[in-house]
């Protein structure tokens, strides 16, 4: 729809530019300072649809959540039962929310310290010229491409007490390692970490490999002329130059950890997630919000989740990402 309407506008505006003020513009056409109405129109037509959709379905819901969060509301009609900060008081004093938050924190830290180094090593490995590299590269991304539901539906029966993993351990003589992978609260969170690493390491590797491509070849040649060993080279050249990529990946990983929902909800479900010690803020939100018919409360949890993510993101951007993003846009903006 929007495509065709822009298509119709194209001809007249293009005409106009060649007849109207075309001559005046000719000397330095694309980077004029003054903004004519025509340019304003182009900007509006081109970016308008995206802004409308984005504001309507991303920004507006977040704003609405802030509003609904002050009400006790079942989701029908307009919210009328104003309760002030009551919902927030309940959330912040609920031990179940505390443990969910703790799990999110645990997942966040472990994701960084497990997936970061593993991802970098794998990217280095896959950046080497080895036979079958292309195939391996496609294969390692398979978990990232299959949906969370498929990952959950596969891992769940494997990790059951009478599932494939325990059976395999028995068969290879490691029967003493058998465990209640999903239901034992001491283990379940680590099982989740293993599944998360399996699922998302491919994405880290994609990013790191992309980052490796940007490191100038000459640096490696120079290092090898200076007699640096492989690991010295990686530590002194690769790691520092991979810095921006690592910081962007870490940012995405942190946000993903804070918002984790799908895999936990699919494998454990809302009730077991609590008892097995893998509940997250998002599963808590869905369990006590929408699934309990309490949309006011659910919205308040969403706001808390939003604020926590926002604070973490801002702190991270302020102290870690700043030097990377500085040049990205500001360098060229007016």
């Amino acid at each position, binding site marked *: 729809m929007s495509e065709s309407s822009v298509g119709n506008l194209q001809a007249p505006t293009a005409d106009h530019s060649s007849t109207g003020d075309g001559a005046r513009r000719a000397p330095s056409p694309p980077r004029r300072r003054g903004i004519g109405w025509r340019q304003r129109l182009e900007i509006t037509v081109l970016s308008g649809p995206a802004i409308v959709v984005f504001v309507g379905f991303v920004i507006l819901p977040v704003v609405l959540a802030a509003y609904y969060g002050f009400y006790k509301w079942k989701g029908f009609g307009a919210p009328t039962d104003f309760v002030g900060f009551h919902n927030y008081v309940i959330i912040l004093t609920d031990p179940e929310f505390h443990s969910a938050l703790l799990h999110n924190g645990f997942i966040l830290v472990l994701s960084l310290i497990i997936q970061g180094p593993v991802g970098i090593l794998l990217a280095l490995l896959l950046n*080497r010229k080895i036979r079958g590299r292309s195939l391996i590269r496609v294969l390692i991304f398979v978990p990232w491409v299959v949906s*969370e539901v498929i990952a959950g539906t596969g891992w769940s029966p494997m990790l059951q007490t009478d599932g494939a993993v325990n059976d395999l351990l028995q068969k290879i003589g490691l029967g003493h390692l058998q465990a209640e992978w999903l239901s034992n609260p001491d283990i379940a969170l680590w099982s989740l970490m293993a599944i998360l690493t399996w699922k998302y390491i*491919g994405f880290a590797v994609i990013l790191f490999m992309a980052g490796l491509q940007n490191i100038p070849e000459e640096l490696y040649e120079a290092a090898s002329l200076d007699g640096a060993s492989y690991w010295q080279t990686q530590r002194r050249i690769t790691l520092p130059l991979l810095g921006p990529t690592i910081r962007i990946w870490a940012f995405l990983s942190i946000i993903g950890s804070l918002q984790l929902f799908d895999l936990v909800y699919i494998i454990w479900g809302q009730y077991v997630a609590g008892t097995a010690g893998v509940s997250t803020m998002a599963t808590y939100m869905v369990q006590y919000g929408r699934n309990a018919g309490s949309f006011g409360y659910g919205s308040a949890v969403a706001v808390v989740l939003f604020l926590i993510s926002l604070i973490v993101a801002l702190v991270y951007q302020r102290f870690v990402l700043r030097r990377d993003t500085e040049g990205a846009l500001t360098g060229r903006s007016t």
Partner: protein
Amino acid sequence: MAATTAPPLAYRDAPEAPVRTNKKSAWGSPTTYFIALVLVAITLAPVAYIVLGGFRTNSQITESPSGLPAPWVVSNYTEVLKSSVFWQQLGNSTLVALVTTVGVVVLGVMASYVLARYRFRGRGAMYSLFAAGLMFPITVAITPLYILIKNIGLINNLAGVILPQIAFALPTTIIILVPFLRAIPEEIEEAAWLDGCGRLGFFFRMVLRLSLPGVLTTGILAFVASWNSYILPLFILNDQGKYTLPLGVQAFSSQYSQDTAKVLAFTSLSMIPALVFFSLFERRIVGGLQGAVKG
């Protein structure tokens, strides 16, 4: 070392991957291959479990959970392929993913073009607005989003899934596309200008063609994300005829919870499209993200 000079694959990698193999590196190639092999095994084990499990019977699975099919049974797969539910949900997933992809790419390219090549007050703010979206995956907004979709009457309607998906895919799309569009040399734009080609004419004649790699990458990412999306359809769609495949898999597995083999068959069939799609375009994704990381 034979490994470092492997010609059969090298030609495919050459254009996008300047390989920096240190030929006298400390890592012997056997170690490298061993690690790679272990890696592939771990990566593929759950997928293999699903696919092979579909070829077994339930009693085989109960007796030996980690065994191989013996004998191989195809009835699970044929039954799923004969069920109309599977095809219906496959159709829903395809429709949602295609429309989402087209929507994201069209809106994303237009907005990115403005951000990359126009100078105007508020440009930085507009970029920040979209970039901020990266911080907020759909999870945060899902509760009020559900209310919003309900109020505009799109509950249990595929459009109620498509529109928010387009919106939430825009930040990634724009962040990947802006550097691509900015990288188009100004000389080309000036040449087009002198040839009497307006900004919009330039956009349609040159920009789309020159930024094709970035456009493909964002399109693929949007497609795969839509194909796998879970929480949004979970909230919005509520009858099996409207379900997309992820919901279908889950509904199927609770409906046939005693019939593990059939569930696994259903699951493995539902992952084929995304896998095929991805293996066709893997190179594009890596290339596109490379541009994004650079930017």
